[in-house]
């Protein structure tokens, strides 16, 4: 079931097209990833969906309702975890959650119960009496998430929620995201960390320069470069003429070397192992290892744009 539908969305700031005619939909119960480098247009897209920005063109529908005609349609059902820590540092964790809960119309025992629950989810139950300014970066990020969960949103939008935190807090947040999704929450997750998106997301939209350059499940995206798997051969010494011998194998598209490693880029899914091993065995050098690299989203992005994700 389609929960959110983005149609031909465009947002321009003066002469810059931050988002340029993008279309995608988010299904109920999935974790939808927006992957792209900084400046790709992810945050602008999120801001429009969150009703913070009006688009220059295009529409966004939530459960079939135009969110710009009726912002409440999505606001009440949506939790937003902004990239920045949108909290009051001089207030205690509890006071922050109480305030945000109040804004979502929660009060009394129900509010207390929800504060307990979300604090438990993000692992901050025993830190609520501490002022936020005394939290670590990871704790602040977790409280930032907790504040978005108070009203039990149907859809959670997370904008780079793990930026600048320690691995332990990062893992905690990723586990939390999976746990929330397991309970039925639909999540839109933006990140420029390819590993996070690979780990979490059911479907992924890769964005670059304001456009969606690829969209699908991880497998679907990887299939774009299915024939471009890589094999790394490590030698004690690279034998002379081996590079030339490998190049004549039909399935090999490209041969490269670095130090004692030969990197083969294959044309298709067929590994052509027999042919490769035949060429290697005919040399006097010892082969130390053979590493078959699975295609990643990083490789997909590189393939599609000619640039690495973190460029």
């Amino acid at each position, binding site marked *: 079931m389609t929960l959110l539908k983005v149609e031909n969305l465009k*947002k321009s*700031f003066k002469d810059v097209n*931050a988002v340029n005619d993008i279309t995608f939909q988010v299904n109920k119960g999935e974790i939808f990833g927006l992957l792209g480098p900084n400046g790709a247009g992810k*945050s*602008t897209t*999120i*801001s429009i969906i*969150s*009703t*913070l*920005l*009006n688009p220059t063109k295009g529409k966004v529908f939530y459960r079939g309702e135009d969110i710009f005609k009726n*912002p*409440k349609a999505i*606001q*009440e059902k*949506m939790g*937003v975890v*902004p990239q*920045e*820590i*949108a*909290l*009051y540092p*001089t*207030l205690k964790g509890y*006071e922050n959650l109480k*305030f*945000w809960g*109040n*804004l*979502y*119309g929660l*009060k009394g025992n129900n509010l207390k119960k929800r504060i307990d629950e979300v604090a438990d989810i993000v692992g901050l139950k025993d830190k609520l009496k501490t*002022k936020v300014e005394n939290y670590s970066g990871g704790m602040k990020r977790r409280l930032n998430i907790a*504040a978005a969960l108070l009203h039990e949103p149907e859809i959670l939008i997370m904008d780079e929620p793990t930026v600048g935190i320690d691995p332990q807090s990062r893992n905690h947040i990723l586990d939390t995201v999976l746990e929330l999704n397991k309970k039925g929450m639909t999540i839109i997750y933006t990140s420029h960390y390819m590993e996070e998106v690979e780990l979490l997301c059911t479907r992924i939209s890769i964005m670059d320069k304001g456009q969606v350059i690829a969209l699908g499940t991880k497998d679907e995206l990887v299939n774009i470069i299915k024939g471009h798997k890589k094999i790394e051969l490590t030698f004690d010494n690279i034998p002379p003429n081996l590079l030339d011998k490998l190049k004549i194998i039909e399935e090999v598209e490209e041969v490269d070397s670095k130090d004692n490693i030969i990197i083969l880029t294959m044309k298709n899914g067929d590994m052509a192992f027999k042919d490769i091993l035949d060429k290697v065995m005919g040399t006097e050098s010892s082969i130390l290892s053979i590493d078959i690299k699975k295609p990643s989203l990083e490789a997909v992005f590189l393939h599609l744009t000619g640039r690495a994700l973190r460029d």
Partner: protein
Amino acid sequence: MRILSMIIKDLKVILSDKKALGTILLMPVILTSILSAALQGNFGGEDFTRTVDIAIVKEYDKEKDKEKLKDTMRDMSNMVDLEMDIENMLDDNLDMEKIFFDEFLGNEDIKKFIDYKLTDREKAISLLKDGEVDSIVILPDNFLYDMNVNFLTTYRNEIDIKVVGDPDKSISTQIIESIMMGFTENLSSMIIGKNVFIEKALEEGGSFDVFNNLDTVIENISEELEESRVVVKNITIEGKKPISSFGYYSIAMTTMFILFSAGLGGRALLEEKDNTTYQRMIVSGTSKADIIAGKFFTIFSLALIQITTMITFSTFVLGVDWGNIINVVAISLLACFAVSGLGILISSLTFKSGNYKMANVFETVIIQGMALVGGSFFPVEIMPSFVQKLSLLSVNGLALKSFHKVMMGYEFKLIWKYLLSLFGIGVLCIAITLYVLKERGRVKNA
């Protein structure tokens, strides 16, 4: 509910900031204590360089006094051709009215200080209450008669020249008193000299050999001076109390420091945006109007806390009597309203500009300017007249004026104009704020 939550949250945030707390609550208490104590002795300063406006009330009847004097003189024995002499004297050298108004008040030196108008008692009181004159000089019934009797005979009739002053303008009143005193002392000296001279002449058997005993004459003059028969009485307006330095600075600091609440509020909206809490509020479904209302009432509450703190402190620690409690509450609420309007106006302009320049200018220039022209540093009466008019455009100036009046015992009907102005300023600021933010559209976040 949302607005209330925002107010509580904002107050918690502000009150958790020790620096802000010091500025808005502790500073006015400290400054009031220091300034009140330091200026206690010479407090009440008004402008000595400007002209003092007075109303003169003639309660005597010139013709009646003249006739009465003639009768008196006629009754006195051994005077020849009395009627003719008295008529000549009164029309010529001893026309006391002419002496008082033309020679005394018309003197070039006196004219530099005093500008007078003749009127009746009722009108004079009304002018004094409206602040159009600083004092009233009442020349009593029989004034001319008594003056002439004192001059022409050995009788000494007491003449009470009353100076009715505005306690708000105690220095002006003192100036008038001093000048009147100078006039009457001169007259007294002349009268005494004349009396001593006549008495001595009589003692000497009517001869003019008294100059041989000049030392005795002077001694007698000194004794007579102590029994001067022309006196000036200072009276304040009925029911009105003068303000002490403690009272003045309690009001002055309160009305100045509530402007800092507006200053704090002026930064609030942009700070929320910079912290992205503004955006979070918007996506939670909180309307811009709710957010602005929240900021408005936060500033209102903060200013009210300041005023309450200052009134409590000054009442119980400094012993200041603020006057009618209902009027004080009314002024406090309207001053808070105006300050809150000002605060959200600054806030909206700061928000729109996207930097803190506007808020900084307000805190460093506008607040200080308002404090100066509003009378928070010095009584506004010592300022040039255009500054005095400007003070009525400043929130603190209007609040200060209103609190003063109530502290002195004035009734509501004499402060409602100031309160209406405070209300008007608040409404105007809110209207401009709404216009400014309406122009803005949605918030840019990416």
